[in-house]
């Protein structure tokens, strides 16, 4: 690791900013009216940020020699998991179905090859 210090600086800084985000409206600005543009922008943070995390993990190939079977299985698993998430709205069901399809699809694709 390039530096234990770097690691701890990041952990403490990110932790502090995270706590301040959590505390923001609950305690810090409890009496301040939120600017309306900011309030509206906050509404789109989950959709935008979660998509930015999910899409590359599913669609972009890993660095170096990516395994095409694994990549295709990931795509299939993500599609099924998205459907399950839409129907059940349960994170656990989404993860379990996604992991199950990932294993099954890999096994099927390798058996067919």
């Amino acid at each position, binding site marked *: 690791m390039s530096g234990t210090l770097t690691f701890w600086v990041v952990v403490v800084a990110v932790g502090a900013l995270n706590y301040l985000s*959590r505390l923001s409206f609950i305690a810090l600005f409890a009496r301040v009216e939120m600017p309306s543009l900011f309030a509206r922008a906050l509404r789109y943070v989950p959709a935008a940020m979660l998509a930015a*995390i999910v899409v590359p993990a599913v669609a972009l190939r890993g660095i170096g020699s990516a395994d095409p079977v694994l990549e295709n299985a990931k795509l299939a698993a993500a599609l099924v998991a998205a459907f399950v998430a839409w129907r059940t709205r349960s994170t656990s069901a989404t993860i379990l179905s996604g992991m199950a399809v990932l294993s099954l699809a890999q096994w099927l694709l390798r058996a067919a090859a």
Partner: protein
Amino acid sequence: MRARLAAIRPPAVEGPPAGRAIIAVRFREVAHLPEPFLPARPPLPPACLHVRNHFSRPDFLAGIRDMSPPLIGLLPFGLVCGVAAQALGASAWGALGMSAIIFSGAAQIVAAQLLAAHAPIPVVVLTCFVVGLRLMMYSAAMAPHLKPLPARWRHVLAYVLTDQAFAASIRRFRDSGDAYKGASYFLGTGVLLWTTWQASNLAGYWLGNVLPAAWSLDFVVPLCFLGLLVPALEDRPTRAAALASGVAVIVLDPLPMRLSLVCAGLIGIATGLIVEARGKR
């Protein structure tokens, strides 16, 4: 005003202990009033008693019970975060510090990925901050429900505010309408989640080398966020925000220091605002 009236009204002759406690708490609320307003009252309860009087054990236990099923999904996620800390070369204390201080799977994973890619500290911190803006939205949604609570409660509850605890508790606050019942429920979900999170992170840290790579356990992370993303796509602007962000993150992938993540997020947010403004016209 109600608090002042309660203070002026003569005390109940010899009420049950619970009634007395409420009077004492009301007394606390008017402690800043000038002397003549303050009638003789029993001494103030210590702050811990004040919290205990409002703590609802059944709601706390209900929170623990309702949070148990979502934990099945979070266990592998915690494991992956622990593995990421180990791969980074952190000590066991480092892994525990990361999960306890940051206490957010998304931020931990993103921080670990960026640190592994040798991104500079400001980029890591900025990206994690934008990822964590989600929490600010939860904070804003939770704020009106927590307003009646003393600062001590709010500071603790803010620390255990997570995607899952928020999703479970906000419903409870709306349904029960009682701030302290909702807060006790929220505390129950938060305590269980916090404990499990630390344990699963440490387990991941120690099991990192044993877990077979063929399991592709790290795929749990996008799946977990997919489970949160899909319910967030509730109307046209949110869907547009996700679509724009998803396209942008692929197009911007060649950017150095994984700047694609934070740029795509900001593009998505702007798109959501634009589509919303157009829809109103």
